[in-house]
């Protein structure tokens, strides 16, 4: 049983990014009166991550222009933010965490928002190469910007054609760089989207002057006179002044694992974001959770999931009985293209592509499993995105022939199946 009197209770949160910070503020809003103590190893005030590879990289802004909350907000809500500090262990028996400075912190409730870290592939020579950076933190962006400004040739190779790699490529191109993307798979975005979207983005980058090369498995990097030569399995070589590594992430599971929490493809949590320890919750990218709409357990790397699980965990710790029941959504901005995605397309049996009449690129791809709408990818088409969201949420069966007819405007009532 939860007690309503939380004055003497301590809630400790490990990880102060989207999930951890949103959780802390949500918990206060739910009426938690005790201490809320956040720890993060990143020394910067918590910031929005999605813009890092997009508008933030191309700007000259400092991170203060990109904060999740102002410094004053933490003070006003009495949220104790400890930055530049790592948690090295969790002792579940005496309900404490051990900090990297040797101190201990007691908790009544513990929330793991440990997220993920970039994967650096063990490519021979990568450790000695010059200007090799992942892109996940404000400091990574600072390093890339600095190297970019200092470079005279500005030749950049991005290893990995996922969203981070592609967004970074688009941003660096916009800044004036000579950018090549090397993707190991036969198509970019292979892990996260469908062949149709992969082709669209490959073409978009080509039009904007970024070379995207697929089937390029990087097997070595040689560095001489400040220039890196990247060697691919097929013998192709590429010179680069800066290398950006965007080959995916590794979930930060070590603390949870060592504490004996149940791990699957992430920290396993129930519909309230609670782990197998009733006093420990986990939220955000690091969790493996059940999605009721798609009836399967998933791990999501997204702001949506971070924020939604944060709210669920805050409500649960406050004694409510929330249930995580969200439709996943994502976005990506590259050049003048805004991609908005809703739902999960995995398992689709057919797709329907709809191009809107008029000028400019504006289309949507609708993914169906038989008659069930699973997901929508909308390119410069927020109308399709919100409509798709509504249909997926309401499990509406729509008339595919009407959807395919571009003379019929995208309005809910226009697309329903007529019952005879």
């Amino acid at each position, binding site marked *: 049983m939860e007690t309503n009197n939380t004055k003497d209770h301590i809630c400790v949160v490990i990880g102060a990014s989207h999930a951890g910070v949103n959780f802390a*503020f949500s918990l206060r809003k739910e009426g938690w009166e005790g201490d809320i103590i956040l720890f993060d190893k990143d020394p910067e005030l918590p910031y*929005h991550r*999605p*813009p890092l590879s*997009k*508008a933030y990289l191309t700007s000259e802004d400092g991170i203060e*222009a*990109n*904060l999740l*909350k*102002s410094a*004053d*907000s933490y003070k*006003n*809500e009495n949220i104790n933010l400890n930055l530049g500090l790592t948690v090295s262990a969790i002792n579940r028996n005496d309900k404490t965490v051990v900090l990297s400075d040797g101190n201990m912190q007691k908790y009544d409730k513990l929330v793991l928002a440990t997220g993920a870290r970039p994967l650096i592939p063990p490519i021979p020579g990568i450790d000695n190469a010059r200007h090799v950076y992942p892109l996940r933190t404000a400091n990574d962006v600072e390093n890339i910007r600095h190297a970019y400004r200092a470079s005279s040739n500005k030749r950049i190779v991005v290893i990995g054609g996922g969203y981070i790699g592609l967004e970074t490529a688009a941003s660096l191109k916009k800044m004036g760089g000579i950018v090549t993307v090397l993707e190991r798979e036969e198509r970019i975005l292979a892990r996260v989207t469908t062949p149709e979207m992969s082709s669209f983005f490959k073409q978009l980058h080509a039009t904007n002057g970024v070379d995207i090369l697929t089937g390029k498995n990087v097997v070595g990097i040689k560095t001489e006179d400040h220039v890196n030569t990247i060697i691919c399995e097929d013998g192709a070589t590429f010179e680069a002044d800066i290398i950006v590594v965007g080959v995916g992430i590794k979930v930060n599971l070590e603390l949870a694992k060592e504490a004996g929490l149940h791990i699957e493809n992430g920290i396993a949590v129930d519909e309230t974001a609670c782990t197998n320890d009733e006093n420990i919750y986990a939220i955000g990218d690091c969790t493996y959770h059940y999605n009721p709409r798609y009836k399967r357990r998933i791990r999501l790397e997204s*702001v*949506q999931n971070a*924020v939604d699980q944060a709210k669920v965990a805050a409500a649960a710790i406050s004694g409510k009985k929330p249930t995580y029941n969200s439709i996943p959504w994502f*976005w990506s*901005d590259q050049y003048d293209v*805004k991609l*908005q995605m809703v739902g999960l397309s995995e398992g689709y049996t057919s797709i329907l592509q709809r191009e809107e009449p008029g000028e400019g690129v504006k289309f949507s791809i609708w993914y169906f499993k038989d008659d069930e709408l699973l997901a929508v990818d909308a390119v410069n*088409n*927020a*109308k399709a*995105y*919100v*409509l798709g*969201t*509504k249909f997926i949420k309401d499990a509406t069966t729509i008339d595919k022939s009407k959807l395919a007819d571009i003379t019929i405007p995208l309005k*809910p009532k226009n697309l329903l199946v007529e019952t005879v």
Partner: protein
Amino acid sequence: MAKITFITTDDKTITLEGTTGSVMQLAVDNSVPGIDGDCGGVCSCATCHVHVDPDHLEKTGEASEIEEDMLDLNDYSNERSRLCCQLEITEKLDGLVLQVAESD
């Protein structure tokens, strides 16, 4: 410098002063309830929905197509709806009154 007033869904009035950035950021920095700005201000999440005071529509101008589309099926949107991440703070906004829209 612009003074901007938010009226929350429970009828509290919060007046803030801003000089740069978006109206959403000003609201988030000052914890205005109902303005979340989850996507950081790129018109992707629609968690910064406000209704512009009927007398102040000239200050804000019209919503862009993407704002209108994002709010197209929103139960709480009206012809004065804006996503306030798209409202850049300038002197022109001084005195602006915004009603924070309800959400589910």
